[in-house]
């Protein structure tokens, strides 16, 4: 499991599927998730389970749903207190029009 070497002072809380996770100001959401053992950020019928791969915005495998926005790259998203995240259901390749 991923672990952080330091413990910054500015602790915040974000939520993964309603479960509170400790995060630090300025931390990337993908990093917070990995640190809490959450490595599957999205899944779908054609892709199966996926998680962060490139950490630089290229692969789109770290997608999550944030508040009411769908399919956001968690490696490009900076954690803010109270952020509510959910696993993204990826309908890519199924021709589903709702896969925004």
């Amino acid at each position, binding site marked *: 499991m991923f672990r*952080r*070497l330091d413990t910054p002072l500015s602790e915040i809380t974000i939520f993964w599927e309603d479960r509170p996770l400790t995060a630090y100001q300025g931390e990337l959401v993908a990093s917070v998730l990995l640190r809490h053992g959450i490595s599957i950020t999205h899944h779908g019928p054609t892709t*199966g389970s*996926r*998680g962060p*791969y490139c950490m630089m915005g290229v692969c789109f495998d770290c997608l999550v749903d944030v508040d009411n926005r769908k399919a956001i790259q968690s490696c490009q998203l900076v954690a803010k207190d109270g952020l509510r995240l959910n696993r993204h259901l990826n309908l890519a390749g199924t021709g589903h029009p709702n896969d925004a």
Partner: protein
Amino acid sequence: MPDYDVIIVGAGPAGMATAITAQQSGLSVLVLDDQPDHGGQVWRDIQQNHQHRQSRSFLGEDYWKGHQLAKAFLASGAEIQHQAVVWQIAHPLSLSVTIAGIAQNLSARAIVLATGAYERPVPLPGWHLPGVMTVGGAQTLLKASATGADGAVFVGTGPLFYLTITQYLDAGFSVAGVCDTGAGLGSPSTLLTLPLALVQPKMLMKGLRWLRRIKAETPYFAHVSDIQLEGQDHVEAVAFAHGKGRPKTKMRIPSSHVFLHQGVIPNVNLSMASGLTHHWHHRQMCWHPICDRHGASSVEGIYVTGDASGIAGSGAAVASGHITGAAVAKALTGITIPITALWRHRMKRLQHRALRPFLDRLYAPLAETLTPIDANTIICRCEGLTQAQVTAAMGLGVAGLNQLKAYCRAGMGRCQGRMCGLTVQALLADHHKIPIQDMPYYRLRPPVRPVTLAELAAFHQADPDI
């Protein structure tokens, strides 16, 4: 009146250097970068980390070198916009960018693409499994938040590969295995390029030191091939063959973290979608935009600089950025920078480039990652397409990549071919038995990043002329 004299896309080594030189020449400069902070991938979060230099010393000397440039960049007066995603370049010269969810159009007299590089896709069996990441991704976690994983297996080759493992060791993470896929010094063509590389003795020595340390402190395997990443919903183990003997020795290392690396390639999606001419670089096995030595591309007013125009590393990228900044200033104002400064940058770039022919050969990507033969290997991550599915579509009489995309959706997903393009190109070239450079890449069109309908609607309202 255009909004700016120059807009630079990317705030890595090349982008920052371009901005400094252009701004010093009196131009108005805007830098757009898609990451949360400037520094690019190589000097990611440099400014912030510099404040914790003691506790983050594991990032190493080369990393801290970036601080000087980042400081100069901030002091230069160039305007910077973080988390700004550029998705289109249009004519007359302007670009479309989304900043904080709002799309807008900005015009400039010159546009410089300093979009850097990203890691070459590594289509091995199981590379799509959660728990498998790129080595660069692992390094990003280290730089961005001092985060790493114990018991990881590193699979690959290249400067970034050895550097990141060294950083991991310095940071105190345990490493379960290092599977080196490099070809080693064996081949005569590699040895022939060695004398030129001796221009950079310090860099060569550094590489040797890294390797010696990794061999001493980790379970290290050389000449690795036949790699499989095993697991159902998450990676559980790496199986591979290693050694020089025939048959090779089989090995399996259980781990829930596997980091892959097969070198980096220029980030050309924006330059391709903007109509710049590209050529296939035989040695680096990727597309490069065709530019003159100042970075001027085939399209009037658009420049490409740093690794986005060909892989040469951060040292060369800084020099290239200054050179391009000077060229833009000269083209727009007629002002030239002191010739001594220009020559200094040119010399520096030459020195850094001298190392490349050697590195390109020494760290050439493994054949099985270039043209995957395993039927179940995922080729297109976005659409979840396997090698068998892509090859089946090829059998339907497909001539090129664009047609293939229509048949099987490879390259249609969000990453817009960044993760499958080179692999599909290699497979299709193989299928038609033609050299890879004769197989044109996807015809890329803007937007080069997914743009939501809401963004577009707001965009059109704001600018009724479009």
